[in-house]
């Protein structure tokens, strides 16, 4: 063992004993005040660096803490001091969701809006969808029965149920959203329908039975 040459990698030699190590470092901590009165550069640099880190941290925390509010998930926002504002859902997202709910629109009219030939009319490119809003709102509120012609083809075997208060009871917001969605999806390019419009028509025609084609064509 002692015959090993000093730089043999198999043995890392200790250059000081444990006692010497502890002694030397203990002396460092108990150092006398510096009577030569010159600054040590290193602690000064460290002071600046640490202060810089803390300054950054404090600024960032101040700006992005969301005031530690549990409902603030976006660090750019702050909790609002006023009463909760009426939240406006994206009508397209809500409309798409209502449309695709099993049992509602997509079940018959298909997610592609093509319907089933001879049974369920298509919605993509339909003149009913893209026509006066008063008609299509009535169809959704109260349903449609009897023969109807869409894009030159005849339909009539199936009955469209009511989605208003006498049927599935969708809210005005949901009906406005689903119509807005349908009127700009696939090849349709028609303006959106507001919730107020639906509400007004809802008041006028509450409890009407399912509409027929002739009745609807009379509506402007």
């Amino acid at each position, binding site marked *: *063992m*002692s015959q*090993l040459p000093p*730089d*043999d*990698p*198999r*043995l*890392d*030699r*200790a*250059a*000081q*004993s*444990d*006692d*010497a*190590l*502890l*002694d*030397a*470092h*203990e*002396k*460092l*901590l108990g*150092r006398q005040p510096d009577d030569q009165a010159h600054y040590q550069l*290193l*602690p000064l640099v*460290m002071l600046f*660096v*640490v202060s810089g*880190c*803390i300054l*950054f*941290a*404090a600024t*960032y*925390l101040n700006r*992005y*803490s*969301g*005031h*530690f*509010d*549990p*409902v*603030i*998930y*976006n*660090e750019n*926002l702050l909790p609002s001091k006023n009463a909760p504002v009426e939240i406006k859902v994206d009508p397209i997202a809500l409309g798409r969701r209502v449309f695709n709910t099993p049992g509602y629109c997509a079940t018959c009219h298909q997610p592609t809006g093509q319907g089933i030939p001879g049974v369920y009319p298509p919605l993509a490119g339909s003149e009913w969808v893209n026509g006066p809003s008063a008609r299509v709102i009535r169809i959704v509120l109260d349903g449609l029965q009897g023969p109807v012609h869409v894009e030159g083809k005849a339909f009539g075997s199936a009955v469209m149920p009511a989605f208003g208060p006498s049927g599935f009871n969708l809210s005005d917001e949901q009906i406005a959203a689903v119509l807005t969605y349908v009127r700009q999806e696939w090849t349709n390019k028609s303006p959106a329908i507001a919730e107020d419009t639906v509400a007004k028509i809802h008041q006028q025609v509450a409890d009407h039975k399912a509409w027929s084609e002739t009745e609807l064509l009379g509506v402007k």
Partner: protein
Amino acid sequence: MTSASPTPSPLDETAIETAGRDPLVFLLGSSLAWLLVSGALALVASIQLHRPEFFAGCPIFTYGRAQALQETAFIYGWVANAGLGLVLWILGRLGGAVLRAANWTFVGAIFWNVGVTAGLVGIAAGDATALPRLEMPGYAQPLLLAAYGSIAVSGVLAWAGRRRPVMFAAQWYAVAALFLFPWIFSVGQVMLVWVPVHGVLQAIVQGWFAQSLWTLWMAPLGLAGAYYVVPKVTGRVLPAYDLASLGFWCLLFIGGWTGGRHLIGGPVPAWISTVAIVTSAILLSHYLIVWLNLRGAFAGGGNALRFIAFGLAAYVLGGFVDAATAMRAIAVRTQFTWFDEAQQQLALYGGVSMLIFGTLYFAVPRLTGRPWASTGLLRGHLVLSFLGLILLIGALAGAGLAQGADLANAQLSFATIAADTRPWLRFASVAQAILLLGNFMLAVNFARTVGCGKIAAVKEALVS
């Protein structure tokens, strides 16, 4: 106090080692066995990423389980055993007394390994908790806690009964690691496994647990060794030692707050990630202070210091990368990608493990009373570790950047992402194989060093 003591004998033997030799050698030996196990599992998991059919039909090694097995074996098998063994050794030496309660340590070490084995078998059987860094099933965890207490007893006694009242930096870190693990682990067990908190709080507590485990336990295990070996081998005092206690307390008080780093943009209130980002920045002062203190490792020579130098560089670089990738603008691109994994490997393997390797190379000759058996295996381990780590971290970082760029583009499918990251992941597998080979060399070297010593002692006993 006296002037400088005479240079110690080459092996720097003290009487400390006599009582503590067997349990500590057992701890170090079992740590190396776990290192090989986790390396093999890491290789399997790594291959599965670019060849999904590898072991796909075998439920034990399905990727999710292989990943959990690998992580558990690495942290609770390799890092825990080696870290504890070395920390006990350091406390014994600096305490200036023979390690007492060595039998407790031995029994504890055996039960710790039984516990880790039970944990791994549980994960393979399907009882994993799916909590990152705490995957082992609930039934294995209390056993680990009890075993840890048993192992740590001799370390606490060595510290409490130390000859000099003033403690050295290595002792602070060693004591911190000894006390903090059971506290962190038991809180994690209770709040995540036994009486789990509700909903997304699990993710928050798990984040706190994982970061605390890293900054308050694993980093101190590595730093305790580094702070001891560097001045011992270089023979000089640590250059910025008066700042060392600031660095120590900074790590301890700030470390646990960075838990929210993985929850940026996630389903938790924004303040949790903001606090994590802010504290990651403040923690930079700790990394700077460690660098200033331990930079002597780069000047010195010798095998141990080379490992410690690499470990120090990786540890400090890891700290800066952590702070940088915690920034939201960068996190949005690197989150959920291989870049996160590269960061983890940089910290756990490049940082702590390399620091532990350095301390191991310094400690084993003193524990066994003879130098390492083979220079070739020693050099081989060094070269392969350096090479393997640089390749692994580079490959994972590259994969992460490619994946992040692809994920950000909503038009690109996951098939494209898989194709883009595949070449990088192949390099990562090669790197894992290189690392495994290097660690195998270390294990063989260790076995020969310990074995030769035993054989020589037996021969002596027979002759006399």
